[in-house]
């Protein structure tokens, strides 16, 4: 029965060159800052070798960066490891994990259209949620998003 400390020790020693910071928040939550270049290496290791389940990725617009958190759950020890990367807000690019692992496909498409992140090597970079008539380049989840639709009615209507 593998223990939490053993898993974390193995993980930190294996990737010590790529880990910038580690926050051991509680028994079930660990947040790790890593370099963007190492995401494929570390993500694939957690998914394939450790057998963690990929939960989802959450991206936020935090000027001057865009932050992406990849959440993995190691079910046997109930440990949620979140990998944090910071990208440059002017040109947010990172390598795609979807080309090897299906589970990343849809969320990378969603992050790319809602926040404008480019996932290099994504097999299917089409729109997922936004309508066809939504203009290109306008990312609704960015902090500087402004209403572009002149016909929108934001009154209560009564």
């Amino acid at each position, binding site marked *: 029965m593998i223990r939490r400390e053993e898993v974390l020790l193995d993980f930190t020693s294996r990737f010590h060159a790529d880990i910038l910071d580690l926050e051991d928040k509680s028994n079930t939550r660990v947040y790790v800052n890593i370099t963007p270049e190492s995401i494929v290496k570390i993500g694939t290791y957690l998914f394939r070798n450790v057998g963690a389940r990929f939960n989802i990725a959450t991206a936020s617009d935090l000027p001057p960066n865009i932050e992406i958190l990849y959440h993995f759950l190691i079910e046997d020890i109930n440990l949620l490891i979140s990998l944090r990367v910071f990208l440059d807000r002017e040109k947010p690019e990172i390598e795609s994990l979807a080309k090897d692992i299906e589970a990343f496909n849809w969320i990378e498409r969603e992050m790319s259209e809602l926040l404008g992140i480019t996932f290099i090597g994504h097999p299917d970079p089409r729109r997922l949620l*936004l309508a*066809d*008539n939504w203009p290109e380049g306008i990312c609704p989840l960015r902090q500087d998003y402004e209403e572009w639709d002149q*016909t929108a009615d934001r009154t209560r*209507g009564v």
Partner: protein
Amino acid sequence: MSLKLKALLKSPWVFHLSTGSCNNCDIETLDCLTPRFDIERFGMLLVGSIKHADVLLVSGSCNRMSVERMKELFEQVPKPCLVVAIGTCAGSRGIFKDSYNCPVPLDKIIPVDVYIPGCPPKPEAIIAGAVKLIEKVGGTL
């Protein structure tokens, strides 16, 4: 109101349409067909094709993608057709008023005859709304 419509309302065929809803209103509408409420005894029937519809039941907060399809479908409906807006979202978008993907409420796109508010409206409320619709048109049950 036209004689044809009054005649149709003796046994209205309803077509249900969702324009981006959480589905609660849709389930409560389907609930009306189940044995406890059983709206079929009033002759109301849920049809699968819009070309057979007399009454359109619309729910949902009109998001951008659904609105295009809904406009196309509304063209195909044989007029006269009555539109019922079920739920608060169909009435005025409710809490989704400020959403970037829900620009205008339903009654700015197609004409609405009856509003049934609620989130979701109970099946009793939907039946009451249906009765009001029939009375509005001047028919009787």
